[in-house]
């Protein structure tokens, strides 16, 4: 960057500021309600704070360094670069998220999702569903994202500038959490597939309740860890070292056993935390939406064509499926009857167990897998209490799903069911609706498909099933909240 004068930096800063303001305005104008108002407010706060920071710092520097033009130029350049970097990250990280739309089917789920999340978190939040062109579901939680950026600027400001930034931050009074749930745009018409969002919401519940902190640290499995250190020690260029960790070591330590052990310890623990957080989300989702979480995840993996292999961020798919099934069976009371749903789940157990045995665990993954496996009971015992009050166990399933299913099978959007005790029509539970959808899809499509003319292609019939589910979720939520 040497050779660029301060004027150029200031000019490009102004241009960038102007273009970002316009871009936010344009993107906001294009959004249909409900808009992510808090997020937009946060973006505006950052832009305003950066503008305030730079203009005030420049005023103060000009007074303070009046007699030292070289130092003044250097300082102004430095501050302009900091401001430009913040604007740059705004451009790259946040603006793409403003492409979120709400005029499609996924919007129909949103009120129910908001209500469900509200049960688990007391913090204020704004949740936005983001259709992605990647085939991936993801959670992105930003805690105090805008205020944190402003606080960073405050720390590097003189008292006057700081006071102005504090005022801006307090006036904005943003909600604590801005949450984005990403989903594949191709699945926006599938109420069944969107059940995966329960897992992503599990991440949010974990994040706000810091469940993972109660689960860690765990002592790594000794034998496999020793084997890992031995194996890694034999290779001078330790393949598992990330550049970041490598920089923190010297040549003296890297070739000693203690050095290799330190690196292995670090990489194993990082992987352990990520895997445990996936397990937390899986278990929370299993309790929150019952068998629908298993079916949705199972179909998602199939749809991805996923290998039964671990990654840095996720345990092996078969291991996760096995975990969900085990939770459904042992803790939630499924698979102890001859019902259609219990049969389908029971049939999956040996298949999934074989897959879990087949999964390949190498290096750190082997250590982490063994560590989790030997601590699984205590891990699960700590996760369950978070969701136990809302767990959709087998008895809940049996008392809600059959009535809903009976309507769905006849091609009726199962919005309400008759409450036999009250003798009134009451709102069908959203979780019940989704499970009825999965049960129908997995066990008895023939009856439902038979409601259609022969000329209607099967995929259109399936599409219609999903539309009935969307409608039922939307309308039952209104019924429940209607006063």
């Amino acid at each position, binding site marked *: 960057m040497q050779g660029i004068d301060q004027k150029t930096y200031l000019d490009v800063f102004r241009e960038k500021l102007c273009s970002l303001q316009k871009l936010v305005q344009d993107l906001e104008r294009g959004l*249909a*309600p*409900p808009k992510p108002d808090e997020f937009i407010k946060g973006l505006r706060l950052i832009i305003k704070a950066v503008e305030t920071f730079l203009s005030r710092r420049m005023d103060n520097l000009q007074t303070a360094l009046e007699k030292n033009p070289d130092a003044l130029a250097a300082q102004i350049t430095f501050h302009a670069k900091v401001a430009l970097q913040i604007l740059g990250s705004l451009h790259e990280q946040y603006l793409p998220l403003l492409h979120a739309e*709400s*005029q*499609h089917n996924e*919007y*129909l789920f949103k009120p129910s999702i908001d209500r469900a999340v509200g049960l688990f978190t007391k913090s204020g939040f704004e949740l936005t569903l983001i259709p992605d062109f990647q085939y991936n579901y993801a959670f992105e939680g930003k805690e105090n994202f805008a205020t944190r950026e402003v606080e960073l600027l405050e720390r590097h400001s003189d008292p006057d500038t700081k006071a102005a930034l504090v005022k801006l931050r307090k006036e904005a009074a943003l909600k604590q959490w801005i949450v984005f749930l990403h989903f594949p745009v191709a699945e926006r018409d599938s109420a069944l597939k969107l059940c995966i969002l329960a897992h992503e919401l599990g991440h949010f519940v974990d994040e706000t309740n810091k469940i993972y902190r109660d689960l860690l640290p765990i002592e790594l499995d000794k034998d496999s860890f020793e084997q890992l250190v031995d194996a890694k020690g034999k290779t001078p260029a330790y393949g598992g070292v990330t550049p970041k960790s490598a920089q923190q070591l010297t040549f003296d330590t890297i070739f000693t056993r203690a050095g290799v052990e330190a690196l292995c310890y670090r990489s194993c623990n990082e992987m352990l935390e990520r895997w445990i957080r996936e397990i937390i989300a899986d278990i929370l989702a299993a309790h929150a939406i019952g068998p629908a979480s298993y079916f949705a995840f199972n179909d998602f993996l199939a749809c991805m064509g996923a290998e039964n292999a671990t990654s840095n961020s996720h345990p092996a798919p078969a291991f996760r499926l096995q975990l969900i099934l085990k939770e459904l069976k042992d803790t939630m009371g499924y698979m102890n009857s001859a019902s259609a749903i219990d049969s389908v789940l029971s049939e999956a157990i040996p298949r999934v167990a074989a897959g879990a045995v087949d999964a390949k665990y190498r290096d750190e993954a082997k250590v982490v897998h063994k560590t989790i496996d030997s601590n699984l009971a205590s891990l699960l015992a700590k996760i369950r209490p978070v969701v136990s009050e809302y767990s959709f166990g087998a008895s809940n399933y049996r008392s809600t799903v059959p009535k809903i299913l009976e*309507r769905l099978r*006849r*091609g*009726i*959007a199962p*919005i*309400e069911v*008759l409450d036999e005790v009250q*003798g*009134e*029509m009451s*709102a069908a539970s959203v979780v019940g609706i989704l499970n009825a959808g999965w049960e129908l899809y997995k066990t008895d499509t023939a009856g439902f498909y038979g*409601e*259609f*003319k*022969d*000329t*209607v292609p099967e995929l*259109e019939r399936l599409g*219609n099933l999903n*539309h*009935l589910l*969307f*409608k039922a979720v*939307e*309308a*039952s939520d*209104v*019924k429940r909240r*209607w006063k």
Partner: protein
Amino acid sequence: MSASESGSAEESLPNGAVLSKQILWERIKIKKDLVVSPILEKSQVGDGSVDISLGTRFIRSRRSKTTEIDFPTLDKEKNRSFQESVVVPFGEHYILHPRSFVLGCTFEFIALPLDICALVISRSSYGRAGLLIATAMFVHPGWRGCLTLELENLGEIPIKLQPLSTVGQLVFLSAAKLAEQPKAKIIPVSPMFTTLNEDPRWKKIAALKQNG
């Protein structure tokens, strides 16, 4: 259990008779073969009719290169070039300008038994403000789905359309019972655009021309 077995008020009704509130509740809650769902307030069900409200989904026209609507050659792709779907969330509204037209649908999901038909009636209060909600007023026995409403502002002032507002009524009449549940081409939950291109008459009309 048929109506006659139940000994209900419905027993001796001739075809075309308007169904009373008591019969409607019986069919909704006891026989469960009439579905108007959700019913948000009991007062929605009156003698002979059930109030219906506006849903959240609309299909509106947009300017496009389509030069005309030619029904025999219309297809889904062509439809999409001059129309678009919009969802209006609860609490928001859709502005229907004077002499413009939008397709909406009922918020309620409706399923008629094989011996009941229905008529869609505009609510007169809206009618007096210039809002017309339906032109295809007859609903066949055995029909299922959310009804498409053809909303038109015949007045001079824009009208705010709010999802969940009560825009009309369904009047239920007894009908000669169908032998079996008709098979569906689609069970709609959002407004449906015309499918007139599928009308077999077009081919016959074209054949007439060819044959001289």
